[in-house]
């Protein structure tokens, strides 16, 4: 137990010094610090981006783009806020930029490593139409809805990632669900 705690403290100290080197941007240590941070956080950033864009190939590209933005913005990093929340905010905005360039219904919306839908009353056709209606939502509403409703993340976490208030998250989710219902009704589906 003591050994594990000492190891965790040691790792924490190492990461703390890496974050300090990253923020300072000293040419002698910056690149090594950035590489360490990349390897420690690439999985978390990829996973976060994938939750938003739901396209593994795009998520890989956007993870690299996120770290590119992190690389350039190192001087603005605030150690008191923590690296992961900061990276998550940048990743969310990177994903939002990407979604804004995509045409509705042309991007891949795939079921990422998820169990098959369990409700037999909801047919594949309805699920397909719902996914298509979702892709037609404005990107800002899509992100709030997918993170809060599908991924069931706390509103506080979604608000931090989107740099908006919790109330704004609730409003966006509500608007997204209302637009989704209207779109489905136009297609003859009454939820």
């Amino acid at each position, binding site marked *: 137990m003591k050994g594990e705690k000492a190891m965790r403290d040691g790792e924490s100290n190492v990461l703390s010094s890496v974050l300090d080197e990253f923020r300072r941007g000293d040419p002698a240590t910056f690149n090594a610090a950035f*590489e360490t941070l*990349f*390897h420690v956080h*690439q*999985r978390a950033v*990829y*996973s976060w981006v*994938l*939750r938003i864009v*739901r396209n*593994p190939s795009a*998520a*890989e*590209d956007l*993870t*690299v*783009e996120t*770290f*590119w933005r992190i*690389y350039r913005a190192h001087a603005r990093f605030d150690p008191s806020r923590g690296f992961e929340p900061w990276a998550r905010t940048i990743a969310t905005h990177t994903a939002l930029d990407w979604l804004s360039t995509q045409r509705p219904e042309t991007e891949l*919306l795939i*079921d*990422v*490593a*998820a*169990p*098959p*839908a*369990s*409700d037999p009353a*909801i047919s594949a056709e*309805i*699920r*397909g139409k*719902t*996914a298509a209606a*979702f892709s037609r939502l404005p990107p800002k509403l899509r992100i709030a*809805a*997918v993170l809060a*409703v*599908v*991924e*069931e993340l706390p509103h506080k976490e979604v608000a931090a990632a989107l740099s908006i208030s919790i109330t704004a998250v609730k409003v966006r989710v*509500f608007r997204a*669900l*209302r637009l*989704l*219902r209207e779109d*489905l009704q136009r297609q003859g589906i009454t*939820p």
Partner: protein
Amino acid sequence: MNAHEEDRIKQLFKQAMPPAGDTEPERDLWPAMLRRLDARPAPVPWFDWALAGGLALFAVVFPASIPVFLYYL
């Protein structure tokens, strides 16, 4: 939209879009990151330089135009 409709839409939404959960990339992305870091920034097209030069020259010849330019920025 009442609470029942909202719940129904949420259920439909979750069925159509299952959670992605905690997934890791299929490959290490560091080589792609290195390529991104090594990529040279896109060169500025010659006509952008010409436009900037023309504007600078115009501002030198007609200094009174500077506030007008700033207003429209």
